[in-house]
């Protein structure tokens, strides 16, 4: 349904070209949930904003690639056509519900705006629909709440209102950019449950962008791991979690303190910091921090290739070499596998 091919989003800045997204491809089918994982600055959000065509141009430019949605390339559609798609066919939920709602309009007003732009409804019909979507997302007393302002809402309610807005036009694709990062865990559980329910009800495809591997393992069918603007691993959720074939994904899992293992295991920190997107290292982007690094890694820039059926990873090491390295480091850490 949605297909992204070799997407490149670069930003021209005074210091040089920032390659925020540098050759990312994936596809999304109806009803599927794709998890995009990565650290801050890995290009997750810029990928989402590119699909929505919300990156400011300039400085953003798309030197290569295409985003195909229902047989049209979103990178080439007119602004007018894009406006029809945005919010209607593809909707987005932003990370921070505090700043993404307008404080001077009532919540009802803001949801109604989205509905009236995209659907040919009268004011009173739109109002009814607004109340109905608010009820759908589990807000009590929607008739009263539509008249309230965002500051009267708690964080969880605001995120529900954002989801209501996103779903008000029954989009085919919903992009959720860190929808629960700003929320407490008990509220996060409510919101995630809500998203799963709504997905089952409407068959929406979801792109779930997050840095929380727990959230991904709960929701996603497939996972794409991003590092320094590239996809470094793509596979089913199970494959990525149980048999990661890119040292970065593996180290990320080993660097997490976990609830489900006994506490005495030492964490494996990933040394150093993510590279600057202007001056990328020679060879593999992850080579300066990689625990499995060998000399060739500093020269060869690996492509994303199929290591196993439908399991892609960007690493020059063979599957056997990766497995051997994993065992070696696990022994050093004292992890039982």
């Amino acid at each position, binding site marked *: 349904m949605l297909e992204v091919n070799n997407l490149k989003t670069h930003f021209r800045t005074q210091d040089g070209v920032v390659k925020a997204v540098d050759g990312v491809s994936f596809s999304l089918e109806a009803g599927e949930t794709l998890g995009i994982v990565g650290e801050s600055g890995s290009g997750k959000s810029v990928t989402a904003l590119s699909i929505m065509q919300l990156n400011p141009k300039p400085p953003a430019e798309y030197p290569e690639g295409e985003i195909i949605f229902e047989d049209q390339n979103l990178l080439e559609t007119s602004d007018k056509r894009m406006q029809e798609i945005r919010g209607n066919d593809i909707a987005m939920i932003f990370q921070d519900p505090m700043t993404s709602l307008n404080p001077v309009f009532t919540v009802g007003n803001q949801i109604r705006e989205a509905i009236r732009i995209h659907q040919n409804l009268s004011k009173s019909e739109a109002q009814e629909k607004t109340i109905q979507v608010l009820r759908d997302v589990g807000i009590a007393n929607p008739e009263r709440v539509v008249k309230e302002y965002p500051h009267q809402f708690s964080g969880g*309610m605001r995120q529900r209102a954002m989801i209501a807005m996103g779903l008000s036009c029954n989009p085919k694709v919903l992009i959720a950019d860190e929808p629960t990062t700003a929320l*407490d865990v008990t509220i996060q559980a*409510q919101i995630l449950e809500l998203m799963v329910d709504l997905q089952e009800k409407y068959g929406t495809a979801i792109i779930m962008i997050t840095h929380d*591997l*727990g959230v991904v393992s709960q929701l996603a069918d497939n996972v794409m791991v991003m590092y320094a603007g590239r996809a470094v691993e793509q596979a089913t959720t199970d494959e990525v*979690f149980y048999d990661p074939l890119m040292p970065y994904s593996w180290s990320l899992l080993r660097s997490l*303190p976990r609830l489900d293992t006994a506490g005495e295991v030492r964490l494996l920190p990933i040394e150093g910091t993510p590279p600057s997107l202007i001056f990328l290292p020679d060879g593999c982007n992850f080579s300066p921090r990689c625990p499995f690094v060998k000399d060739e890694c500093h020269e060869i820039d690996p492509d994303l290739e199929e290591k196993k059926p439908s399991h892609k990873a960007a690493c020059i090491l063979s599957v056997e070499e990766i497995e051997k390295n994993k065992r070696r480091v696990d022994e050093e850490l004292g992890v039982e596998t």
Partner: protein
Amino acid sequence: MTESTETSAETNGSSGDFLLQTKDLKMHFPIRAGVLQRTVGHVKAVDGVDLSVRRGETLGLVGESGCGKSTLARLILRLLEPTEGEVIFDGENILGYDRKRMLGVRRNMQIVFQDPYASLNPRMTVGNIVSEPLRTHDVGGDSSGDRKKRVQELLEVVGLSPEHYNRYPHEFSGGQRQRIGVARAIALNPRLIICDEPVSALDVSIQAQVINLLQDLQKEFDLTYVFIAHDLSVVKHISDRVAVMYLGKIVEIADRDALYDEPRHPYTASLLSAIPVPDPHKERERRRVVLSGDVPSPANPPQGCSFHTRCPRAQDYCTNHEPRLEPQGDKVGAEVGSGAEASGPTEGHRAACFFPVLEGQHIEESETSTPYRAE
């Protein structure tokens, strides 16, 4: 001055195993309204907290935003003056201390803040930031050269390089800044460090670096930590004992494994079940308890048990009786009261609930047969 406090602390036998104790600590912030700014109510940010921290241990403190964790940290350090209660550091109530004596105590208790972008002065060099406590307390050598050497040692201890001495905070990444914050906290060789969400502003791969650093420093310098976080996985990893806070009160406290394996308070149990674990198979099989609603306002906490508005096990009894933090038996079964009480007031597993989650029970199955634990 500082010497005399140190010797008195050492000779003071009553402090026992505990480096820090709080007794019925309360912080009620007044809410003022109207032209005359009359007090119309109180936000009960911390409402009667009894806590004991043993020497050399890490006590984890978890809870949702607004539960009073950070306020409690500031009360312990006396950065806020509590409404009521006692803070006993090394056997002495420090709340009565004057400025001069307080300075001596502060040498031994330090804090690492949450946001490494806001807690380092952007106009000071790293050298100045880390040596400031040395200058304030007049330690670390007489000449500035001695202090510089000491600061460079500290930078190495926390994994930075001595050449960073003359740089400014903006030249560092989040993880490195947090290391600077840690270097500043350990500069005076304190005994207690309060870590207030030290890793929550950092990326996952960097969190592990800082957690490992804190653990290494604890071993090397024999530190005691109060580790505050909302992330229960991080707290599980680093803590020996864990306390769970809800609306300004401690609702459960226990050894790490007891708390995570056998949570007694329904709030702890639902918090634990709310956290997604990075394991898809386990995730699919898990039965999750989703609490409804939001945390009530601490300005107007519910009557009775403060958790009853969201509790899946709540009964009528909970709405008008307030549970106390009482000993819970772990795998002891029937003899709950006697067995746990014998081991002392701060030992073992304590929870504030009339209908605690017993072994093998699911928290939604409220057991009406569970006897009231009468007050």
